[in-house]
């Protein structure tokens, strides 16, 4: 294909030609093009289909406000739906497809919707599709869903990488048009730390689209020179291809930098986009303004575009939508487009100006006081029909129509903290209100200063004011400073199917119907008609719709309402917000000191919070996890097993008041705990529920080491700091988390002492007498390595926990395995740990579910009433101490092979099975290889008094009913003889 609609000039690199494909056809373009400009240059006007009526759609704009020209970019797992062609930078090999059409863009079957549009008026779906009831999900909804939506996802994982970053500056300038560049020059020259960000790949904003001069240079040369000066300043950071998407609290702005969207293939390790959080002292919004359309009959045909967009395409990109162009305007700016196109050799059929006193001294025909009343051309504009002031009509043959209805300041970011813009009659537009985000000010066209000189001046002044610079009088170049000359004009009288929201197919008629049906607030209008809900968020349609609503209601526009904008300014890939935190990197992975050893042993790992823990250690030949776990339990209980319990939280509690402090945070007492002794500690929340449990070992009078459960380590530490700093600020107590410092292993089983004696240095006596149950102390192992030994047991066996500095953890585990060979030592994982604690009746995570009290868990007596401790008072509320509160019990099936299901509910053996007769539930279940039976723990109403009772365990969810017996939770060694051995 040749570029038939390529004009002369422009800021494209004509020396290089690149190839691209659209709907499987090959085209050529030049660097500097966008996909949109390249398509126009290649005489492609039809680009997509609208959402509801599947009407043919072409480009409307040349910027990020584009509602129509959206495509599926790239292919395979990089397919990217709903991509605006107008902001897609051209690269060699670019591939794009039109979307929301079937079987093809030119012949779209659902184009039939357009024929029935009268039946598909605003909100019609709320009034029908209700009969028969079941048909909604089965019939109506699937049809609607298939027709709705726009582009498609590939359904494959996004293969690209994304980064997040953080930058800080004195002044963030948003937009690098005339006001932004001038602001950056002013601030940069004054030495301020400046970030200048613009969504475009070329700085300059409208300066790149205009033919007038700034100073003695062309506008875009001036812009280029300003950029060159800014680039040389070390205190100025220029961020092109960067959209500031939102203004958040306290001067934090979100910005998306598209680092890889303009290349065919990303270099390895480089991100496609970066989400920046920019921390600013001040920010200056220089986001310019957006031209708005005029609504008239059939104003949505491909080829009907914003006049300023035609000018941008011609001047910046050297492309035109057609060689025959007409302009429809209510203001002088429309004429500028005609003049520029004319100068580029495009035939101007006429300028249709609604003003009777339109300027007429041009080289082309001006139809004053005229209006476009209809258009023709199914897949692209062919004719426009113009009503002349004398009542006659005239038909103009043209391939493009530029429409200019005036300009709306881009106030979006000023609304992100729910500030409301205010109406300005001179502009007939909303300008930023007074309630701006703190630290943000506005300059240039975004603030209603529509001339180039006005923009330059307000940019300089805005920067100086934001930074409180004194005596700064930048030399402003001479520049265009024409006053605004326009007549507010929103839509052509008598039109019906005149589009406001071109993507969502909302017409003037829909706005009127919305009013007729009582949806008269702006929010009701938007929600009822879907106006402004499309991918462009109504950037070109909201104000016009509001104006029409105002007219129908007989009110002024400000009386009718305002419309505010929410972040993001333009849509952002979900991947960009996720950054690197996805897949395996979603959360950091915490590895235990024995991890690498366990991996060598072929351990199966399980996620416990962010930790990876060995779940079990399969041996060759074991085909089911139960075989491994049963073996680990049996061998531990028969001889000795070792388990990595490093993940338990460990907090160093020191200070003169350490014991007193623990007395407050634990329900049971610690004041009298002897040095070199350990005690179980029960921690309550202030509401009386059990928060956590663990042990506290007293290493010295003023030094404890407390453990927390793995899951609650962070919460418990935070809670203890709260108690220390906020409740008892004068206590002499210091808290340091030491979880990571020590590799800690449980060595459990009747031979645990014997095994440890092989590694504990001989000067330390760990016999039962010297180191009894609940003893603890500092020792050395393996020839002088400092270690801590605790005689505590979770399994119910004679057991110790031994801790060494983490770097030696791997070696210690290997040593325990080697030295333990004589005892047939077994490493055990979290499953066996779980089985043994259930056998022993220890409450753990499933029982400490945040709704259980000490009484529920059979630990009521531990809550000391002789002292002040967190949670003690509220644990006594009436419903928490009723006679039949849930109590922890053991559950045993009458037939041992029958399954016990955690989450099953307990019912009396007779009577109905329903919620009203629920007696409790099973919290944990396991197979006990010691008892050769399935067993469980549960919480049962009045459970302490129901030992021996037969009940039904029901789990209708898993289709299970089992007869069970209520027994003591202590299945193994209820007297605790083993652990004291």
């Amino acid at each position, binding site marked *: 294909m040749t570029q038939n609609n390529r004009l002369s000039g422009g800021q494209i690199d004509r020396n290089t030609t690149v190839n691209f494909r659209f709907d499987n056809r090959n085209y050529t373009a030049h660097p500097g093009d966008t996909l949109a400009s390249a398509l126009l240059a290649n005489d492609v006007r039809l680009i997509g289909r609208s959402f509801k009526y599947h009407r043919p759609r072409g480009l409307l704009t040349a910027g990020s406000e584009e509602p129509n020209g959206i495509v599926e970019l790239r292919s395979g797992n990089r397919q990217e739906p709903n991509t605006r062609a107008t902001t897609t930078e051209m690269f060699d090999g670019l591939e794009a497809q039109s979307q929301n059409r079937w079987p093809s863009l030119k012949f779209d079957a659902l184009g039939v919707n357009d024929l029935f549009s009268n039946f598909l008026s605003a909100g019609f779906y709320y009034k029908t599709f209700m009969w028969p009831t079941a048909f909604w999900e089965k019939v109506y909804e699937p049809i609607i869903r298939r027709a709705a939506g726009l582009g498609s996802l590939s359904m494959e994982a996004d293969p690209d990488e994304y980064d997040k970053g953080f930058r800080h500056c004195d002044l963030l300038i948003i937009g690098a048009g005339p006001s932004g560049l001038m602001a950056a020059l002013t601030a940069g020259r004054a030495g301020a730390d400046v970030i200048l960000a613009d969504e475009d790949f070329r700085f300059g904003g409208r300066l790149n689209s205009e033919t007038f001069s700034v100073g003695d240079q062309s506008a875009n040369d001036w812009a280029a020179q300003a950029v060159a000066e800014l680039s040389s300043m070390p205190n100025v950071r220029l961020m092109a291809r960067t959209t500031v998407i939102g203004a958040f609290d*306290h001067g*934090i702005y979100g910005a998306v930098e598209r680092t890889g969207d303009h290349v065919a293939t990303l270099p390895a390790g480089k991100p496609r986009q970066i989400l920046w*959080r920019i921390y600013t002292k001040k920010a200056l919004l220089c986001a310019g303004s957006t031209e708005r359309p005029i609504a008239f009959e059939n104003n949505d045909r491909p080829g009907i575009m914003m006049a300023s967009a035609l000018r941008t395409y011609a001047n910046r990109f050297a492309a035109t939508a057609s060689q025959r162009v007409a302009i429809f305007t209510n203001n002088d700016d429309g004429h500028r487009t005609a003049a520029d196109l004319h100068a580029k050799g495009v035939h101007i059929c006429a300028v249709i100006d609604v003003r009777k006193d339109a300027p007429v001294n041009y080289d082309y025909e001006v139809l004053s006081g005229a209006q476009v009343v209809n258009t023709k051309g199914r897949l692209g504009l062919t004719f426009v029909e113009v009503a002349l002031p004398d009542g006659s009509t005239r038909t103009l043959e043209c391939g493009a129509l530029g429409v200019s209805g005036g300009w709306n300041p881009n106030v979006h970011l000023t609304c992100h903290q729910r500030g409301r813009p205010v109406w300005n009659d001179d502009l007939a537009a909303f300008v930023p209100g007074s309630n701006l985000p703190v630290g943000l000010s506005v300059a240039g066209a975004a603030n209603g200063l529509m001339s180039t000189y006005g923009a330059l001046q307000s940019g300089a002044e805005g920067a100086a004011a934001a930074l409180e610079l004194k005596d700064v009088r930048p030399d402003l170049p001479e520049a265009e400073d024409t006053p605004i000359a326009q007549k507010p004009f929103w839509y052509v009288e008598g039109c019906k199917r005149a589009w406001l929201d071109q993507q969502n197919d909302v017409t003037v008629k829909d706005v009127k119907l919305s009013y007729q049906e009582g949806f008269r607030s702006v929010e009701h209008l938007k929600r009822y008609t879907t106006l402004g809900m499309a991918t462009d968020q109504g950037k070109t349609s909201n104000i016009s719709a509001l104006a029409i609503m105002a007219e129908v209601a007989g009110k002024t526009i400000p009386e009718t309402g305002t419309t505010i904008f929410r972040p993001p300014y333009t849509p952002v890939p979900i991947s960009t917000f996720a950054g690197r935190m996805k897949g395996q990197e979603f959360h950091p992975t915490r590895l235990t000191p024995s991890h690498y050893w366990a991996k060598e042993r072929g351990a199966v790992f399980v996620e416990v919070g962010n930790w990876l823990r060995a779940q079990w250690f399969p041996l060759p030949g074991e085909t089911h996890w139960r075989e491994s776990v049963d073996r680990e339990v049996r061998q531990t209980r028969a001889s000795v097993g070792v388990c990595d319990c490093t993940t338990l939280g460990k907090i160093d509690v020191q200070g003169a008041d350490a014991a007193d402090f623990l007395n407050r945070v634990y329900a049971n007492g610690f004041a009298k705990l002897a040095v070199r002794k350990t005690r179980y500690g029960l921690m309550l929340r*202030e509401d009386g529920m059990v928060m956590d449990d663990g042990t506290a070992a007293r290493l010295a009078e003023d030094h404890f080491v407390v453990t927390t459960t793995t899951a609650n380590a962070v919460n418990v530490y935070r809670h203890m700091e709260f108690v220390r700093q906020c409740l*008892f*600020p004068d206590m002499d107590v210091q808290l340091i988390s030491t979880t990571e410092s020590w590799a800690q292993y449980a060595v459990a089983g009747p031979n645990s002492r014997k095994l440890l004696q092989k590694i504990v240095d001989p000067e330390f006596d760990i016999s039962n007498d010297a180191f009894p149950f609940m003893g603890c102390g500092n020792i050395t192992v393996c020839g002088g390595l400092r270690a801590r030994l605790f005689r505590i047991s979770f399994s119910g066996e004679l057991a110790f926990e031994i801790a060494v500095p983490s770097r030696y953890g791997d070696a210690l585990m290997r040593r325990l395995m080697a030295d333990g060979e004589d005892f047939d030592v077994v490493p055990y994982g979290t499953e066996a740990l779980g089985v043994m604690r259930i056998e022993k009746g220890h409450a753990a995570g499933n029982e400490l579910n945040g709704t259980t009290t000490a009484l529920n868990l059979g630990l009521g007596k531990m809550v000391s009433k002789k002292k*002040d401790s967190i949670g003690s*008072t509220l644990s006594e509320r009436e419903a928490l101490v009723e006679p039949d509160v849930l109590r922890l019990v053991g559950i045993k099936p009458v037939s041992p092979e029958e399954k016990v299901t955690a989450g099953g509910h307990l019912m009396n053996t007779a009577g109905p099975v329903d919620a009203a007769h629920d007696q409790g539930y099973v919290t944990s279940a396991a197979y006990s290889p010691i008892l050769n039976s399935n067993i469980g723990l549960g919480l049962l109403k009045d459970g302490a008094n129901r030992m021996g009772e037969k009940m039904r365990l029901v789990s209708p969810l898993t289709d299970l009913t089992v007869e069970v017996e209520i027994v003591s939770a202590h299945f193994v060694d209820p007297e605790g003889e083993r652990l004291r051995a």
Partner: protein
Amino acid sequence: MIINHPLLGPRDSSEFTYLGDATLINRPDWQAEDAAEAFYEYGYVRDNPAGKHQELWFHEAGDRSWLVVTRDTTTHEISKVELARDVARARGRSK
């Protein structure tokens, strides 16, 4: 949001963990006559003002200080940041 930490200066609020109303410092006396009612109020009832709110934040990813932040719940404007320990002492808390 940015919390101007009294020791460390401005820090992003995402480094902090929020707890709630700074009345949580005013833990009742467990031996008082009306302790049950006082603890109920302390634990469960809040002013929840639309306006200035004194609240507790923990500098979890920072220096582990608890702070009392005075922040407007309608605008998010922060007017004061103090170390909670100082506030607790000023409210008469000790050991």
